[in-house]
């Protein structure tokens, strides 16, 4: 329970920062004359790229318990150079494994669940879609949905690839 409480506090702190950055970005986008749905789309896609990168970066450095999601991916061959780093490391003593697990929970809680979770949003995106539909711009609303979904997944893949390329040297050396 103590671990969950600490992680929740880290998530809350990150969520507050993420929400503030998103709102500031919306203001900056409005000042530049970008449509509100476009600003949210850009924020969400950039957040997805960062999420993919951080996911790989944190998992490759701190995951040693063999329970990460990356090891189940069908594209493991694409993770060459870092392969095996996510698997159970039986050479590490239990206290070290526990320490790494706590670090992973705290850092991913603050950065991924908190900052990036608070930065990107589904409700505001949904409200934009509703607004576009109510304004009779149904095509634009559908485009917003398709772009958010496609570019969001593409952003994650891009972020993972950036993470893989920047992590390879670190992993080989470790």
């Amino acid at each position, binding site marked *: 329970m103590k671990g969950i409480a600490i992680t*929740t506090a880290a998530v809350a702190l990150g969520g507050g920062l993420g929400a503030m950055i*998103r709102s500031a970005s919306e203001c900056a986008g409005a000042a530049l004359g970008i449509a509100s749905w476009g600003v949210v789309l850009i924020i969400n896609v950039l957040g*997805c790229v960062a999420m993919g990168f951080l996911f790989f970066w944190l998992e490759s450095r701190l995951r040693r318990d063999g329970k990460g999601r990356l090891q189940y991916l069908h594209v493991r061959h694409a993770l060459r150079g870092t392969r095996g780093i996510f698997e159970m490391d039986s050479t590490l003593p239990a206290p070290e494994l526990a320490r790494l697990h706590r670090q992973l929970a705290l850092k991913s809680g603050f950065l991924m669940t908190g900052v990036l*979770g608070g930065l990107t949003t589904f*409700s505001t995106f*949904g*409200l934009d879609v509703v607004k576009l539909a109510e304004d009779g711009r149904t095509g634009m609303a559908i485009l917003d949905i398709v772009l958010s979904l496609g570019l*969001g997944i593409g952003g994650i893949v891009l972020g993972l690839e950036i993470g893989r390329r920047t992590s390879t040297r670190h992993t080989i050396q470790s």
Partner: protein
Amino acid sequence: MARPRSACFHHVDGVDMVSTGRQVFSCHVGTMANVSIFELGLIMGGGAIGAAARYLITVCQSRLTTWPGWTGVLAANLLGCLIIGVAVGSGQAGPWTHAFLMAGLCGALTTMSALALDLTVLIWTAAWRQLAWCIGITFAGGIPLIFVGQVIGEALWGAAA
């Protein structure tokens, strides 16, 4: 003046603003200088509560149910859509509704990045049926829930606003 559907009125800097629930605070003039510290505080506070609630929802989902991991984020997204719909439908003006509830709490309770990460993992693990359910419920459930929330908000607070 007839109030358009899903519109909120608020009074900022001596000007009656009509927004569609997306102009969350006084940055309509295009400068951050008009966003007060109070509004930033509300956004941060709402964002902190929203993100913490999303995390706790996913913890409860993983510990109390045997459902797939993506259902935690799905539940948070659907709940956030309902709440933001109620907020818009209520027609309530002011920073507590726009900054705290909509931009802060609902914005951070819901997430696109974790959803996209879940979808990517489902694609890479070839879990096509789960992928279809995740996309279907998220989009075909979340967006209509905003409409439902608007109706609830109008019914509960719309007449008073």
